[in-house]
C-alpha cells in the first residue's frame, strides 16, 4: 500500500489526516482511492473535466510524474506520493 501526504490546507477535507494510505497500482488509481475516501478533496485537486488542476503536481517519492508516465506511473508498496502546487507570478 502506498501513502499520499496531504498538504496542510487540504487536511480539512481529509478528516485532518496528514497522510492517507491508498490502494492502486498506478498514480491515477491511488488518487482515485484518495478521493473515494475523501470526496471533498476532488474539487480541490481536479477540475470540472476530471483533470488535475493546472497548479497541481504529483511526485512519487522524489520524481515528478510528468517526467514518468503521468497518471499511469506505477506505484509500489511503501511509495510516498506528494501533492505539490506550481507557484509563480510577477508584477505585470
Amino acid at each position, binding site marked *: 500500500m502506498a501513502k499520499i501526504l496531504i498538504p*496542510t490546507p487540504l487536511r480539512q477535507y481529509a478528516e485532518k489526516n496528514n497522510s492517507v494510505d491508498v490502494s492502486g497500482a498506478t498514480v491515477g488509481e491511488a488518487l482515485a482511492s484518495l478521493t473515494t475516501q475523501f470526496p471533498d478533496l476532488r*474539487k480541490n485537486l481536479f477540475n470540472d473535466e476530471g483533470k488535475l488542476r493546472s*497548479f497541481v503536481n504529483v511526485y512519487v517519492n*522524489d520524481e515528478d510524474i510528468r517526467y514518468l508516465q503521468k497518471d499511469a506511473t506505477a506505484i509500489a508498496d511503501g511509495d510516498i506520493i506528494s501533492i*505539490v502546487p*506550481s*507557484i509563480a*507570478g510577477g*508584477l*505585470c
Partner: protein
Amino acid sequence: MIRVHPEPWATMVAHAEATFPNECCGAMLGTADGDDKTVTFALPLENAYTGGQEDRYEIRPEDLLRVEREARQRGLDVIGIFHSHPDCDAYFSKTDLENSCPWYSFIVLSIQKGKFHHANSWLPNAEQTKAEQEPLEY
C-alpha cells in the same frame, strides 16, 4: 487574518530588500486555526524564473516539496508564499493570479527604491480568476 511574527517578518523583508531590483520568493510556515493563521518561520527560496526576474518569480515544485518536508519535521504547517514587487505596489497581479494556488495565503511585499514600503496578503480562488484581500498583521 494572517499574523506574521517579528522574526519571520524580518527574514522576509531582508530577503526582499537583498534581491532588489529583482523579485524574491519564499515560503511561510506556522499554524492555522481555520482562517486564523500565524507565521512563525519564513524560508527564503530561490527565484527560479529563467528570464528577467525584475518582474517575475517562479518557485520550483521540488523546492516546495522540500518546504513541505521541513514543515513536517518542525511540526509546522505551510501557511503561504511570499514574494516582492520591486518599485511597485503590493497588489495581486494578473500574472500572480494566473500562476497561483488557492491553498495558500500570498503575501506581496512592495519594495520601493530598495526598501520595504508596504505589504498585503491575498487569497486566490481555485479558478485563478480573482483574489480576496486578507487582513495582515506584522
